[in-house]
């Protein structure tokens, strides 16, 4: 499995080979990156926006975290044991860890955090995983044990959530805590200041339990416009930015850019799909959905929309994920096969108007997608054209996000939609595919219902063994590929650019940020002396 994981990242631009003089990491310098939005709330239990999460990931730690190959390793927990019956986990915490204000970290903090997440008064969207716990105990300052009613595979991962300081939050109204604007954690960087609308400044935590980070300071600048970010990157005001496909392919080949920046490329966790409303008569027949899958040229979409910077999606997992089933049924572009399947399902062009019909009704539907994501609208146009070739008339509607959800998705008032999901390393897909999740506002809004899939999803989250889990999710992916409730379209690449002076960057399946505290800049290239 490891081979498979690593083979996916062989296209990376290598970091400049260090010369003898600068092969020894030194401290200093500042890393500046941009945030498209202003962070909202730096208390992790309440935060839900990506800008806040990015900053919190430097300031706070969980008990566990994913390593560069997406295998869980200890963070605040040194080790853990899972009981034979898979019902309880005992964490052994690191000793000598300190909060940024100097107070010692103990199991009482973990216990407090657990209670905080399940407290009905705390408006958090992260409670679900912790509600599965039936008993939590802290027998001594460095041991924490949780027990579940039945084995729950996402449990271990769930303890990667930020641990909060008991001594600063106990007995206080959490929604009014000063920590919302001035976080205090155990992480590699401590909070310095937040200039509203402008920047958040963090500095290296000299007492960090894994050693002081080499980069002395991290600054997040709020730059709400992507073009401005790109100009700012080129002028040296930023050291890091996620590029768009067009920037990556056509605007970064200048000598100035290649002299100053390294570009990287690896698969992201998000995938884009065409989902069918399965309650509509039109899409009830599996052959129709398969026909559409054959009629769409996915590589054409990737080339046209992502400028080639993506891979074909065959299911809900990105192709280099350990759980991804490489053997699922694939639908290569084959309009003839599409026409045959449609004919078999009873669709023919009886009135010679180039649009298929059945019982006097033409095969026509509308794809609805949200405004603000150009890639989706363009994808819809390419699909529209390809489906016209096989005799299906498609209309496109692009709607503002809130309206899109309220008027179309949650009410089931749509034929088909182009949307995307961003997951993570945990393969559980219960919320998206289980038939119990079809109520309004729930995620199975296409109303997919397959008893075998339900059973697989229930089983998958009860098994810890990776090999066993893979068998379950392989079958789950086989069914999805065959039934095509979604036509999975593409998985895009993450395309970060980093200033060349930073050394120690290591590309892995988890991206490049996993060893951030080991990044450094040779003395002679350091740009900021304070």
């Amino acid at each position, binding site marked *: 499995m490891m081979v498979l994981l690593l083979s996916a990242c062989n296209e990376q631009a290598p970091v400049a080979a260090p010369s003898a003089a600068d092969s020894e990491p030194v401290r200093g310098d*500042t890393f*500046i990156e941009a945030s498209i*939005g*202003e962070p*909202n*709330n730096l208390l992790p239990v*309440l*935060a*839900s*926006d990506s800008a*806040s999460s990015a900053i919190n990931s430097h300031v706070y730690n969980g008990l566990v975290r994913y390593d560069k190959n997406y295998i869980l390793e200890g963070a605040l927990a040194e080790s853990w044991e899972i009981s034979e019956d898979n019902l309880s986990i005992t964490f052994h915490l690191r000793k000598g860890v300190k909060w940024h204000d100097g107070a010692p970290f103990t199991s009482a903090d973990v216990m407090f955090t657990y209670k905080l997440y399940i407290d*009905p008064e705390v*408006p*958090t*969207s*992260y*409670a*679900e*995983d912790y509600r599965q716990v039936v008993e939590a105990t802290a027998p001594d300052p460095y041991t924490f044990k949780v027990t579940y009613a039945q084995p729950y595979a996402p449990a271990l991962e769930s303890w990667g959530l930020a641990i909060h300081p008991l001594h600063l939050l106990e007995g206080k109204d959490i*929604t*009014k805590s000063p920590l*919302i*604007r001035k976080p205090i954690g155990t992480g590699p960087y401590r909070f310095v200041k937040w*200039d*509203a*609308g*402008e*920047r958040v400044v963090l500095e290296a935590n000299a007492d960090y339990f894994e050693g002081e980070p080499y980069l002395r300071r991290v*600054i997040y*600048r*709020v*730059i*709400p*416009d992507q*073009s*401005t970010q790109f*100009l*700012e990157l*080129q*002028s040296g*005001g930023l050291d890091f930015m996620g590029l768009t496909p067009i920037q990556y392919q056509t605007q970064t080949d200048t000598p100035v850019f290649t002299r100053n920046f390294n570009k990287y490329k690896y698969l992201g966790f998000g995938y884009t799909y065409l989902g069918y409303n399965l309650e509509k008569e039109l899409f009830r027949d599996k052959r129709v959905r398969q026909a559409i899958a054959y009629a769409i040229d996915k590589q054409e979409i990737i080339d046209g929309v992502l400028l080639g910077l993506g891979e074909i999606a065959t299911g809900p997992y990105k192709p280099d994920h350990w759980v991804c089933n490489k053997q699922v049924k694939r639908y290569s572009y084959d309009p003839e096969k599409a026409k045959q399947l449609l004919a078999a399902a009873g669709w023919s062009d009886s009135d010679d108007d180039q649009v298929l019909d059945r019982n006097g009704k033409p095969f026509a539907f509308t794809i609805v997608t949200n405004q603000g994501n150009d890639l989706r609208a363009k994808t819809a146009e390419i699909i529209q054209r390809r489906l016209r070739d096989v005799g299906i008339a498609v209309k496109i509607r692009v709607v503002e*996000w*809130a*309206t899109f*959800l*309220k*008027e179309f998705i949650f009410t089931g008032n749509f034929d088909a939609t182009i949307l995307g999901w961003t997951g993570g390393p945990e393969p559980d897909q219960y*919320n*998206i595919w289980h038939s119990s999740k079809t109520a309004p*506002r729930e*995620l199975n809004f296409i109303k997919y219902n397959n008893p075998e899939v339900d059973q697989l999803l229930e089983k998958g989250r009860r098994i810890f063994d990776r090999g066993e889990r893979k068998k379950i999710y392989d079958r789950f992916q086989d069914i999805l590929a065959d039934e095509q409730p979604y036509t999975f379209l593409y998985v895009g690449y993450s395309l970060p650019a980093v200033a060349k002076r930073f050394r120690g960057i290591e590309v892995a399946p988890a991206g490049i940020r996993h060893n951030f505290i080991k990044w450094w800049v040779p003395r002679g290239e350091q740009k*900021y002396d*304070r």
Partner: protein
Amino acid sequence: MLKYIGKRLLMMIPMLIGITLISFMVIHLAPGEPTDLQTDLNPDASPELREKLRSQYGLDQPLHAQYLDWVSRIATLDFGESFALDRRPVIDKIAERLPVTIAINLLSILAILGVSVPIGIIAAVRQNSLFDRGSTIFVFIGFAMPSFWLALLLMDYLGVRLGLFPIAGLRSFGYEYMSTGRQFLDLLHHLILPVFVSAFGGLAGFSRYMRANMLEVVRQDFILTARAKGLSERTVILKHALRNALLPVITILGLSIPGLIGGSVIFETIFAIPGMGKLFYDGVMMRDYPLIMGVLVIGAVLTLVGNLVADISYALADPRIRNE
């Protein structure tokens, strides 16, 4: 005069109530609620959480109750807490952003006046001259050019290629270590491009307006009299004509006060300037009702005050208005 002002002030109250009522209804008509950002398409958000958040924000109350609650608080100048996750008082958020926006807009109004008044005068005095035609073309280019495009162009050439100006933000890295004088210069350096962009689009309107006023004034009898008395052309234009031509400009200035707040979204976004326009835009996107209402109320008050100031200065300048 006092009676006139008093009457005008009293008239502002029903107008303000009307404005807030309509604003309140319109923002609640838009689909979506502030809680949606946290709960929509989020697998971890339970229905209980959604209800909890709604009741926390008071969204479970009927609309009229929400409005009355808001009005009763605003009457004591309590703008409430933002619905954003940071839950900070709306007034703090506005106070943080208002000075920047006002500073930029004042600078750009000064720049507009400084450039468009002379352009207008010269163009009127030398009507149909090369300067008149040239300036017409120039100001209309400014009028037609989308400001975001101009901004990106300037950032690319003057910022990235020539390195003359900072591209985004208000302050340099290490601003806090600078002396006060350097800090001032640093701020100024960062403001040049945004002020230029925001002023450039306004030049057309003002200079054309100035030109038209001037043309009208110089045709009037008192100018003829002044010339007949043998005054120099310079005195005639700058002393007698200009003063009268500037009068209507006061009205326009008064009317442009509310624009100080709303019109800044584009260049504040592009130049990453933490101002009111961006704050308001984000508030709308997040359905942050108290923030939206706070900004709208301040905008409405400024508009009404702006109108009042314009009317008063008009009345001061022209007795005919006072007496009506």
